[in-house]
């Protein structure tokens, strides 16, 4: 396999012929002592479905966050939909973010709000000023939101509180919220890492279906090799913030991927780690720039917060 002997080479095939919607050139990003991205480059063409594959801490989340302007590179450039993300601020940045949907590992729905309100928050970049409650949104936005909810199969739950749904359902609301943006690009950061296998399969199938239906460009980070192989069109492997693999999934087997990781892995300990990782079907892995899984419980009142010493430690 010629593509595999030189993992750093961009993939060959029809995808390259199309115009690139995402171009990452030589991006390096450090958080204090740790280097999250090291001279990472990536080009994604319109309509591609790309999987970012790597262990936790390999820089997948950081790369995704750069694509939406949530993080800024130390060096290098990120161009998305023709705009240099790292140079944008204010309204142009928000306009770009509006065209890029983002699906989170922890769903990140506003728990006390209804499902419908959560979907509508995806339209915020299109309206001026803050919105409190449902009555703040125009009727056509509400109809569109209901349409997206039907698309993800949750129409019946439109007026239910978001935090009463199961994990799989919440992630589908998250997808509907991203669709509400009418995005050109959909980014998904470990969308199924917090879900059981059955919900995972549902959610991944839904994302792919929607991507093909709506002609979306998708970049999705995953850590399960099996899933990445069967789901994506193209795999970009990251290790310690470096792109070590970039190839089409066609004709690629798990064995091939293992070989590649084996080739670039320096110590046997790391190899073991990769094998363990690959062997794991489902694992909840927080990456360092992303907040760890917060306990959902928002304490009810009150005096307790007052007593909490947290503030004094700040």
């Amino acid at each position, binding site marked *: 396999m010629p593509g595999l002997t030189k993992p750093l080479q961009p993939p060959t095939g029809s995808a390259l012929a199309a115009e690139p919607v995402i171009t990452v050139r030589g991006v390096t990003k450090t958080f204090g002592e740790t280097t999250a991205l090291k001279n990472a480059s990536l080009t994604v063409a319109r309509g591609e479905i790309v999987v970012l594959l790597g262990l936790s801490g390999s820089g997948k989340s950081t790369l995704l966050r750069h694509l939406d302007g*949530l993080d800024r590179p130390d060096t290098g450039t990120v161009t998305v939909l023709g705009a240099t993300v790292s140079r944008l601020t204010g309204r142009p*940045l*928000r306009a770009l973010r509006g065209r*890029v949907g*983002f699906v*989170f590992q922890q*769903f*990140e*729905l*506003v*728990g*006390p*709000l209804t499902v419908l*309100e959560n979907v509508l*928050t*995806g339209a*915020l*970049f299109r309206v001026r*000023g*803050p*919105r*409190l409650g*449902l009555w703040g949104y125009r009727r*056509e*936005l*509400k*109809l*569109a939101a209901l*349409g*997206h909810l039907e*698309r993800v199969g949750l*129409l*019946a739950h*439109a*007026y239910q509180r978001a935090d009463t749904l199961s994990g799989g359902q919440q992630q589908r609301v*998250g997808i509907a*919220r*991203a669709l509400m*943006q*009418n995005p050109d690009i959909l980014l998904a950061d470990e969308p199924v890492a917090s879900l059981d296998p059955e919900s995972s399969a549902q959610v991944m199938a839904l994302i792919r279906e929607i991507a093909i*239906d*709506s002609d979306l460009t998708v970049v999705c980070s995953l850590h399960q090799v099996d899933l990445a192989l069967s789901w994506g069109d193209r795999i970009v492997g990251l290790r310690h913030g470096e792109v070590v693999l970039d190839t089409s999934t066609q004709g690629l087997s798990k064995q091939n991927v293992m070989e590649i990781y084996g080739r670039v892995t320096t110590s046997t300990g790391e190899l073991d780690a990769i094998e363990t990782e690959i062997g794991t079907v489902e694992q909840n892995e927080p990456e360092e720039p992303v*907040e760890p899984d917060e306990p*959902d419980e*928002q*304490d*009810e*009142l*009150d*005096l*307790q*917060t*007052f*007593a*909490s*010493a*947290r*503030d*004094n*430690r700040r």
Partner: protein
Amino acid sequence: MTLTLDRRRPGQADAEAPAQRAPRYRAQPEKIAAGLTLLALVVASVLSLISVDISLPRMTASWENAARFFDRVGVISFPAPGELLYLTALTVGLVLLGTLFAAFFSVPLAWLAAANTSPGRGWMGLARFLGVLARSVPDVVLAMVFVLMFSLGTLPGILAIGIHSIGMISKMFADAIEQIDEGPRLAIRAAGGSRSQEFFAGVLPQVLPSWVATVLHRNDINLRGSVILGYVGVAGLGLEMSYAFKSLNYSLGLGIALVIFALCVVMEIVSSAVRVVMLGQAPTGRGLGDRLLRRLGVTGVTADASHRPWTYARVRNAVWGMLFVLIVVGSVWICDINWGDFLTVWSYLPETAAKFWPPSFGSYTAPVMLAAMGETIAIALAATILTIVASIVVGSLAARNVAPSRRVRSGMRLVLVAIRGIPEIILAIVLIVVTGLGAQAGTIALAIGGIGLLGKLLADSLEEVKPGPEQALTAAGATRLQVYAGATVPQGMKALVGHSFYMLDTNIRAATILGLVGGGGVGYYLLNAGQGSRYDLVTTIVLMILVSVLLVEGLAVWMRRVFR
């Protein structure tokens, strides 16, 4: 349909279709009822504001009064240095002992009241009821009673502060117990530990930081509240101040007020320093104690593995601990407690109880007293609504995730600390003395004082919301204000409602106490009844306050349940 949805999803020709198939939005009747109650409360608060007559012309008029007043007072004077020092030490010692008394008795009460440690539902109910009862009876009333039963001195004050504080401290202790991680306790039980071992090894270490914070916080509150105890005869700075104002010696009165204010600020700083020392997870090694120890040549020495090494941290903690014990011993000494009172008091008990029962309206008619209570509630409502509006602004800007810049946040936090430092009773006394306005001055004092508390609670609650949803909205291209309204506020709403009711609850009691110093409402009658030995009327007034506070508490519980 202008939306591009149809273009993207050709199969969906009619965008109206899902709207027709969607379930109708049905508001639960209970939610509507709760919403209407909230609305009614807001309307009542606005009406109260009008009835208390807070308006700009009135305020400018009172400002002129103030200018005239200060012309007359001239220079502010203080008591002699020795006396001042003694009075300050006495006040601090008395408050500290009262708080510690409450903390001590709150431990078993909290253990009984916490759902996960309580031996039974009956015990739990009893403990919670005792807590609510202790909270509902103002410490001033308790002090009135104890002044009757004990010889004059500090004991009535200590007991009044102590018993009243049990209400809040035991509740917060119990809340802390309920929030622990059950794992360690279970592990101790699994290893064959007894109930008390479970408590001391499994529960106590987990709740201790929160408990310490609670006690320190309550101590600050008690110091600010101790002023008013002087008005019913408890020794200390408050008593001297009340004497000064009663004898129209305004320059001395204002001087003592200034001293109390300074004392409160110092105490606030000290207690936050203690909190940092005791609760900071990683000692910085750069604090005052560390520098002192280093100068003395104490270093971390490990001698023998069977003894815990005397590291910096351990030496420092030991030194602070001994200092604390010394302060407590000093407090007991300076308060000069008449221990014999504890033996003689029992003989007065039946006699005193008979004075307070049965309740009656005394020489007043029921409508007069109810109107007075109404005025107190109006002051509380008016102050609460002013506080809420101001706190939403200040508190939001003081929250890290809302403030537009670090500087704004620090500035607002500083404002909140400064406001908390001012005892509202001092503010009220000064406002009343200076501007000569009753209910109006009381309302303004309560409203300003409330911002310090509600603003901080709100800022903390907003900072504690899950950051993920905020980030999700940012990722979708929302502005800061949209993120605030769309993710931060909905998550913090429940806390806002809860804090606001807590504020109202506090304000009703505070408004009563303001009446004692001329702030209008039922407090005036309370003081008169106490001084005129009409104790049956005192009982009536206390019962009225109790009913109001319990009503608010009930409403708060209901609101918290509905607006989960």
